[in-house]
């Protein structure tokens, strides 16, 4: 087990290198550089604005101060060298350390992603089990129709509709997300509904397959109660493929959080990253991508480790 974990953690290295290099290249391929972004933004600020005062010398000096005058590979190497020592640099825009900004914004995103995932898993498994148990009835059809709908609705639209219906028309929750669990309900629903649809379909299919196996037939013929057969003997095995999907869905939820955070005005990594990209805040984008890549790999490792718990017969190769 330990060697398996060690090997998996080593895969972090190529993943992180690949992802950060790709993002680095894409950022530098964009035509407008961060200095020009600051000057342009400056131009829409308070008067008097005298564009000619931003001379070629001043522009060159700003690029030098931000380290943008060095060759690209040197810039990338410097980023990696500092990142290994825990220094992700400073945001061009806010001047705060990237680490400080990530730690300030990450809790809100994690909270939202966990709430969304929890809701997705709960709703998805419950609906999937119901559909499997009432296979080929109108209940099954209803659940699958809900699943198709959930997959089809864009989370952006769903978020706005939930605000319009639940907050504005029915007045059950405020429009502006309050602090605490109340502020999580609608965003988590908007975020998790799509994932719950995927989980519901997979749970249903997997459970239907398991329920047709010989050992389940044996359990039933021995006179075990139906609930025991389903929840003690069948469901655990049926959840193995579902666990894989849950791990993958976590990545989708993190990316979905970008949209949901914008719609509901919630702070978080997603909205921070979008703003960083728009303003060419290179250190902040690179630092955020690095942390998200590491998180994604670690979550998938946890998912794989959970297989062994679900079914001890699955051995993790050494």
């Amino acid at each position, binding site marked *: 087990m330990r060697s398996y974990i060690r090997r998996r953690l080593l895969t972090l290295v190529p993943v992180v290198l690949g992802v950060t290099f790709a993002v680095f290249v894409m950022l530098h391929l964009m035509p*407008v550089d961060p200095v020009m972004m600051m000057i342009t933004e*400056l131009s829409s600020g308070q008067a008097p604005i005298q*564009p000619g005062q931003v001379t070629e010398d001043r522009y060159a000096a700003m690029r030098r101060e931000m380290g943008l005058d060095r060759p690209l590979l040197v810039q990338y190497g410097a980023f990696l060298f500092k990142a290994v020592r825990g220094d992700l640099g400073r945001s061009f825009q806010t001047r705060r350390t990237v680490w400080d900004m990530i730690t300030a914004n990450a809790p809100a995103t994690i909270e939202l992603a966990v709430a969304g995932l929890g809701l997705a898993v709960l709703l998805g498994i419950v609906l999937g089990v119901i559909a499997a148990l009432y296979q080929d009835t109108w209940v099954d059809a209803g659940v699958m129709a809900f699943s198709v709908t959930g997959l089809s609705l864009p989370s952006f639209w769903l978020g706005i509709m939930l605000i319009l219906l639940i907050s504005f*028309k029915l007045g059950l929750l405020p429009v502006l997300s309050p602090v605490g669990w109340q502020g999580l309900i609608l965003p988590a629903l908007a975020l998790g509904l799509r994932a719950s649809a995927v989980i519901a379909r997979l749970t249903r299919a997997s459970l239907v397959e398991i329920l047709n196996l010989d050992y389940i037939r044996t359990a039933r013929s021995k006179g075990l109660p139906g609930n025991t057969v389903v929840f003690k003997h069948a469901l655990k095995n049926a959840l193995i493929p579902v666990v894989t999907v849950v791990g993958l869905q976590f990545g989708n939820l993190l990316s979905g959080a970008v949209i949901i955070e914008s719609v509901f005005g919630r702070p978080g990594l997603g909205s921070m990253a979008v703003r960083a990209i728009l303003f060419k805040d290179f250190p902040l984008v690179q630092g955020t991508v690095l942390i998200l890549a590491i998180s994604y790999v670690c979550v998938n490792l946890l998912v794989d480790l959970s297989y062994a718990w679900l079914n001890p017969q699955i051995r993790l190769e050494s």
Partner: protein
Amino acid sequence: MVLAIGLLPVLMLFLTPQAAPAPAPAAAPQPGGTLIIVTHQKPAHLDPGVHTSRYTAMINQNTHDSLIWQTDPNKFVPGLAERWEVAPDFKSYTFYLRRDVRFHDGTPLNAEAVKFTWDRIRDPKTRSTRAPFLGDYLRTEVLDTYTVRVHFSDPYPQFIQSVSSVGLAPVSPTAVQRLGENFLKTPVATGPFKVEGWPDENTLVLVRNPDYRWAPSYMRNRGPAFLEKVVFKFINEEQTKTLALEKREAHVAEDPARHMAPTFRNDPRYQLMMHKTSGVPQHWPFNVTRWPTSDVAVRRAASYAMDREKIARIAFFNTATPAKGPLVDINWAFWPDAKKYYPYDTGKATEILEAAGYKRNASTKFYEKDGRPVRMRLVTTSTWEQVRAATLAQQMMKEVGIDFVVEAMVYDATVERYANNEYELGRLGLSTFDPDGLWGAFHSSQITGGTQWNRGRLNNKELDTLLDRGRELSDPEQRKRTYYQVQKMLLDMANALYVFEDHYFFAGLSCVRGWNWNVVGLYELHGVWLEGDCRRIGN
């Protein structure tokens, strides 16, 4: 089922009645209450001495004070400085400070604090984008506790305008040293509001400065602000901002859904708080180096073909006004005769093209010359206002036989197209108070150098000379006459399609009173108060 789910919210819209509290009648200002503003304009930080964008300036206007304040073009009144003197050569300025001003941390405002502020801005370690506003700065000299003199190596007549901006507003040296990096998020200045903190990354809270007694003379409220608190909630989505306002969870929304403008205008529960931005209006400069926009006849014809009134009415729901020329009409150097140029006249447009030898193709209906169709590509940003305006303009151009192609994309992509000279029309608008914004938009040095805002690629020596003269002169009347000549020259050459004058678009509950925009287009919350049930929101 999918259809039912999709229709359900629509049905709810029509079935559920809206609450409609009647607005209270106007009354005297009442202290107290928390004003909640929802906006997408989240500042990167709050220190105007480091970097100022519009996002920062709106908030800083209420947390910082400048030494002097601008009330009109070329008119300034005392602020933190009771009086000032300008050297005849414009190489030094002396400010005599008030003696009763305290920073938010209780430390006194004095000459040392002003020197500290400006030296900090010029210090390369600060990496301040405000440094150019101190021109060819030499040093700041402390003459006595409350008298400070700034020196420049070259004449700097515009410094009087620069120093009226909050970008050069004094900050507390004690706080800068005590707070270190945190000063960027919670600056300490002298304004009517102080920064209480950021409860989360998307919420900023300001509290009233109870000691504030040094408001400039043009403000009706000379004491502390009426509002106890101001809460900014930063929300990107315009629908969410609009719903928060309609649900009365916020008092003011910046840039709510534009199609709601007629509702907010006509419904007594709301008010529109709009402010026209001065400077160079939104326009589409013709690229004079590419055919057919290199032909002045084509440019003039296109100018006559565009119905600006219709664009302002339809594309913007009457929240923008038609542009009249190279400057917005509220700018002090706006040339009144600019309004006479290029009224909407499709007959005139086709007449000009035919007189220049263009012939209409019977099958495509577009004009052409020597087999080449009159086809121009507008490369613009894919913001809703640009797309809407461009789409309407496309129809108008088609009517007069001009093939007007709209290519809307993200800002970065437009910059690349401009740099590669792959367009016939660009896009630009500059929010500036001083007409010197014309220099940035039309000087030949700005085609490939500097900000590269001369997207029309005008390379005209006479124009350059006038633009240079405009920034060298100090006498307002002489500057105005020079800029009149600039505008005439630009309009005579039909250098651009001047489309619309943008407005800051705010909507608020009608119980928010005393909302004020200053002359440079920033809102001042010092005189705002809340009436009636407005005071219960947020408490």
